[in-house]
């Protein structure tokens, strides 16, 4: 039995020609990278000619193609076939077309950038729809159940013995029309495949890029926004001088930027559109209320607010007169503001006004999105477990968009969405970029094998997919594109000796002139943890690139040892122009020894006599007074914490690493008379302390518990899971 037969067993034979092509491919192109088209039988049957044309297009682009068509009952079957192709046929990626089961991942929130919804909530919302199930074969999952109502959703638990980090083996993309009617779905995919094939056929190097930063992100910090500027400047250097254009825009350019950004999206020459802002499954937030300081626009904002408050009060069955009186007192306004709150025309005007602030599904449905590649760096836009989700409408719009990147759940504001995006300049497949940057929630909607035109791109993509020669990647460290250097560093970390990799990474971290290369080197070093990792974090906190400073605060916070108090306080005093950093520093310092924090701030305050003293006094006050959280843990230690507060005191640790109280939580677990669910929750909460300076204590605890029969299976399972994550 040879492999071909084995593979062909899985292949739905659309036509004799198709299978012949595959056979021919396998024998002649055995060394070539391959790509899988995974599709449900229904759609496959309806799209025979389009699939054949798509296959030809892929082949022309240097990929052998496997068509996997079936009535997929469970995700495992797909995963298994992909894994086999990966192991035996140099599979580099796959597209999941039509009705492909959606893995809904649980117990894996630490693989997301920030998602922390309690899993006791509705499973559709508290699980993470993720194709990492299909593209990271090392992750281990336990099947839980199929959703009772939405039968394409399959719940899995990340096994406690699984690797607890993502390291994708292949890349994937989804082509899932946001509709329920099968005929409509077929037509949408047909139209997509046709335009995708057409787009793949034309020569189109990246030369037009446009970016938008929406309201309310990263504390609206201009300095954070500047890292987008500097990042793109690194990544698309030659587009800044005549070879093309990189446009930057943000919510503060005009009161309402929706028309501008919609126009950008439909630019026929636009290659890459990057949108950063808040989002939900069905809309993107573009602007807030206009900011103003003069009376007239200020009062307009107030008027809209009070009208809405009044309407809300009525909806909730409250007495609008009470609301009115309260608003008049608190805002110092008279009743002229309320006169027209219920006037139907005013209600319509207010609603139209609100629409100017967002891009909704309805907007995208009827709009030609022509930007070939769109990145929706926002929460929930890519919630593909739902029937309707806004990201789905991008590739299926009547414009020339073929790839949209979006997230299936909420994402961290401080993440680096454009990591390695500069690779599109030299014709890297979008899927390869995803493969090197995705969290559990990051997804491609559209064809992941798409790439822009660049000389030698077929060969280059082959190298990224399969070349594991450290020597080759070391040569790429001199490449003119910073992101090729960044990728090379990643590959070197995988292929070189640890010692040599660390040497090179430190060299690039300290000396590269390109911000994106320094940042990538830092992020890789973070995974490798060299002996002087703490010093590297401190160096990053002084780097001129705001993003590095920002992530250094995260990392200091995650470790929590007092050696970081001084660097954090330094940042507070020296980096006031970086609002996001100082915002994060304030949040971070709460998690350190409060006495030492106060002493350090007071010392620095003396060295900065011109600093805003009121601000410092407020900060010191905050730490001196302590918060209710500190009180909770004191009570936990003294066993006086009321049961009603216990759940909160434990769950808050998932978001706030109160390192100093880890011994108290351990003590609580060891001596707990409390309900088992609290012990499990506490152990789970400790799984978020993987970088903590208290980590060893937690590991020790978990080892003990896992081996002690007197604990229940649930406790021991969680102990083992926490151990696995922390070890």
């Amino acid at each position, binding site marked *: 039995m040879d492999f071909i037969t084995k593979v062909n067993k899985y292949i739905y034979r659309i036509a004799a020609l198709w299978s012949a092509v595959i056979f021919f491919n396998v024998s002649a192109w055995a060394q070539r990278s391959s790509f899988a088209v995974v599709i449900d039988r229904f759609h496959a049957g309806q799209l025979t000619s389009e699939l054949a044309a798509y296959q030809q297009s892929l082949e022309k682009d240097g990929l052998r193609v496997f068509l996997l068509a079936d009535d997929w009952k469970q995700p495992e079957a797909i995963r298994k076939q992909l894994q086999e192709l990966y192991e035996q046929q140099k599979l580099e990626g796959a597209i999941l077309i039509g009705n492909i089961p959606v893995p809904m991942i649980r117990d894996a929130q630490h693989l997301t950038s920030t998602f922390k919804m309690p899993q006791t909530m509705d499973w559709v919302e508290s699980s993470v729809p993720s194709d990492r199930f299909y593209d990271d074969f090392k992750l281990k999952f336990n099947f839980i159940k199929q959703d009772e109502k939405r039968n394409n959703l399959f719940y899995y638990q990340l096994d406690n013995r699984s690797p607890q980090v993502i390291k994708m083996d292949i890349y994937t993309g989804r082509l899932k029309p946001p509709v329920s009617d099968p005929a409509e779905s077929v037509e949408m995919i047909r139209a997509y495949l046709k335009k995708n094939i057409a787009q793949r056929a034309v020569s189109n190097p990246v030369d037009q890029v446009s970016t938008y930063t929406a309201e309310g992100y990263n504390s609206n910090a201009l300095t954070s926004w500047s890292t987008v500027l500097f990042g793109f400047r690194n990544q698309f250097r030659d587009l800044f*001088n005549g070879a093309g254009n990189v446009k930057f825009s943000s919510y503060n350019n005009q009161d309402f930027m929706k028309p501008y950004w919609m126009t950008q999206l439909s630019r026929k020459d636009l290659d890459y559109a990057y949108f950063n802002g808040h989002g939900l499954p069905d809309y993107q937030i573009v602007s807030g209320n206009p900011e103003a*300081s003069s009376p007239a626009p200020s009062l307009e904002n107030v008027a809209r607010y009070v009208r809405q408050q009044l309407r809300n009060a009525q909806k909730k069955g409250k007495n609008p007169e009470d609301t009115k009186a309260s608003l008049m007192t608190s805002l110092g*306004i008279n009743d002229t503001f309320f006169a027209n709150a219920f006037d139907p025309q005013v209600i319509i005007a207010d609603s139209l006004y609100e629409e100017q602030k967002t891009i909704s599904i309805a907007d995208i449905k009827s709009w030609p999105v022509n930007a070939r590649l769109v990145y929706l760096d926002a929460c929930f836009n890519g919630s593909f477990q739902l029937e309707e989700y806004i990201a789905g409408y991008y590739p299926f719009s009547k414009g020339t968009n073929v790839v949209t990147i979006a997230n299936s759940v909420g994402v961290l504001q401080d993440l680096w969405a454009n990591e390695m995006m500069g690779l599109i300049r030299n014709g890297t497949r979008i899927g390869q970029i995803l493969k090197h940057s995705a969290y559990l929630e990051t997804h491609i909607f559209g064809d992941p094998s798409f790439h822009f035109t660049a000389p030698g791109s077929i060969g280059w993509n082959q190298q990224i997919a399969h070349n594991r020669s450290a020597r080759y990647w070391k040569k790429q460290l001199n490449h003119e594109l910073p992101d090729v250097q960044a990728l090379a560093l990643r590959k070197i970390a995988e292929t070189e000796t640890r010692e040599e990799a660390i040497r090179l990474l430190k060299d690039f971290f300290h000396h590269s002139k390109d911000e994106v290369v320094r940042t990538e080197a830092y992020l890789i070093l973070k995974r490798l943890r060299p002996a002087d990792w703490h010093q590297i974090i401190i160096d990053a906190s002084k780097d001129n690139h705001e993003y590095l400073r920002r992530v250094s605060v995260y990392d200091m916070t995650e470790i929590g040892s007092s050696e970081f108090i001084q660097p954090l306080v330094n940042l507070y005093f020296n980096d006031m122009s970086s609002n996001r950093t100082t915002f994060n520093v304030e949040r971070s310092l709460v998690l350190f020894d409060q006495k030492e924090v106060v002493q350090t701030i007071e010392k620095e305050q003396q060295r900065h006599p011109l600093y805003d003293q009121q601000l410092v006094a407020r900060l010191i006050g905050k730490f001196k007074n302590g918060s209710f959280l500190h009180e909770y843990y004191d009570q936990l230690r003294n066993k006086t914490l009321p049961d009603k507060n216990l759940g909160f005191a434990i769950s808050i640790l998932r978001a706030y690493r109160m390192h100093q109280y880890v011994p108290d939580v351990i003590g609580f677990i060891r001596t707990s008379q409390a309900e088992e669910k609290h012990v499990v929750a506490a152990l789970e909460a400790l799984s978020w302390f993987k970088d903590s300076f208290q980590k060893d204590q937690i590991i020790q605890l978990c080892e003990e518990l896992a081996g002690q029969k007197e604990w229940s299976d649930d406790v021991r399972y969680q102990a083992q899971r926490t151990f696995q994550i922390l070890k």
Partner: protein
Amino acid sequence: MKRILFLLAISLTAAKAQEIIRPALSSETAFAIVVDDKTYQEARSEISAYQKSVESDGLGTYIIVHNWKTPEEIKTILHQLYQDKKQPLEGAVFVGNIPIPMIREAQVLTSAFKMSEKLKWENSSVPSDRFYDDFDLQFDYLKQDDHADRQLYHYYKLRHDSPHYIEMDIYTGRIKPAVSGDKDNSVDQIKAYLTKLVQVRQERNPLNQMIVSTAHGYNSQSTISWGNELLAFRSSFPGLFEQGNSIKFLNYRNADFLKYNLLTELNRPELDFAFMTGHGTATLQLLNGYPDVSSPQSSMVNVGRYIRSKMVAAKERDRDLEKVKADFQKSLGLNDKWFDDAFSPERAIEDSVFNQNMDIHAEDLTHVNARVVYLNSCLTGSFHKKDYLAAYYPFSSGKNVVAFANTIGVLQDLWGTNLLGILQYGSRVGHLLKKTAFLETHIFGDPTYHFEAGKAGELNQLLAGKHAKKKDWYNTLKTPQADLQSYALTELFRLEDEKILSQKLVEIFKTSPFESVRTQAYFLLRKYDNPLYKQVLDLALNDNYEYIKRKALYDINDMGESKYTDRIAERYLSDQELSRSIYRINWMFQFFDYDKMLGSLERYLGDNPNVYNASSLLEGARKKVNYEKTKAAALKALLASDKTPEKELLSEIRSLRLYRHHSVVPEVLKIAQNTNAGKELRLTAIEALSWFGQSYQKPLIIDTLRLLGNGTDDQEIKNQSLKTIRSVSDATWRQF
């Protein structure tokens, strides 16, 4: 080495001649410390130490002392020294009470100043040391100010036969403290400054810590203009972005009060260079406005502050407070809450502190450590006044030794970052001034100061050198440093053949990755004003650097040719995120052929399915253009009518200095030619046309005024005609 002391008799004055202490160092070029007698007597040892310090840095230095009566005395000596073959002068500093040239009829040499010269002379003249450092400019002496406090003021007007652009021959600086009270402690301040200066010069301090700050209300508050400036700094100061160095960008949007952060930075002992942009007055740097907010409570706090300020003002004017209050309550919809404490002392203090915190005042600048600061704002360098803000920087007790500032108002859209990068390679600050100054731009402090850099000595010789050849500059052009390339281009412009360099500049404009180099290429081609410039102008509209785009729009505005209406419409459609460009385009709608503009707008926006708000954009522009069309027709009729009162004509014609209505140039020329019209009116008309140097009407202006000048016996009309012709001919040699 023995100093040679000699007396030089100057024919201009019969009084005691100047005392000149020659340099002890024989260097390629020389520097001069020009000081008044009294100051010198009291600060002799400090001045001598300063001289030694400059010389130890390789620059032979004169000390020239005199009881100066007129600016000419100084200019004559400086010019002589400049012409010295062996050791020509490269720069000078004016210490103490040095006559202040107050320049008139030269507003085209400023970036934006357009005050009517009918106003008080001390306000409507431009204090400028270009009198001393640009020897080609020709002036007529008008008078010395007769007010006791303004004895140093000497009024000059720019002659009609003078070049009408600035090309400085040497650089200069002023060491002139601010005096705020009755007691004049200038000399003590000078002594302290010089003592500190000598110490700071010994630091050998490289430029590796920098801040750039942006205050509110500038350039339409465009964050994209700001962001592009960051990218330009990224190209011009690449080293500062690497680990170990730092460059911070402060913005008024960072905090309600930028002041704390900015002052903290200015005080930072290691800070080398602060480039600050924002509005200013002679005694203030304006940083913040009331906070921009949208939440209800914060919005009302702003409203409350506004109300209190109005109530206090009403009280001061003795108005009926109850009525004022009732009016506000009615118009704004407020109850008593915001009025209750309008006059409470606590609230008054709180408001006053709030207002105080929005700006930088002299008393905030007691200890500025940033070695060099650049105040890119109006008026802070009004050194003709006793008290002016810029002086507080070098004369603070901190390590600041140089402040760049402007004596009058400046243009927001000027290219403030031009050549700044040369400072990091060790260029003397004076060299930066020399290449970039308008009539109003000045250095306060030591213009020879430079940061430490490996090859600073060589660089300064190159920059000052009279011997640098084309080849040297072509070599400099090959270095990877953006602003050294940019500088080299300005020198090649002097030395290279237009044909060769134009081609080169076009190539550079198309390919250079550096914003500053492309911008320099643009400005130099603009000087040539040849077909290649027009080619680049077209590309500039689509350049990735917002400033170049903005400047191209500026120039097209000043050309007024209707062939550009398509391009303007295109930018209007594509660049809505560029608030400053959109502001400019709205401005341009006033001056272009209205029907053609409407046609272009229709072509780009009418039924364009790819523009989300095409119809509202089109409608807005159409309304504006139609409005301007009616207005312009009325203006044309008014200028053409012999019934228009002279006062109204004068006012309309004066406004043309800013509002470039190219289409009414023929009417204005008719007024200029009209011998029956009043002299003032005719002179005003001829002068107003001097602002149309890039206009498509330029040939008509030159031809008509030439005829007029040649054909009249009226000397004033003749001179103004010649002056306007000169100004128009030199227009592209001025950046604005």
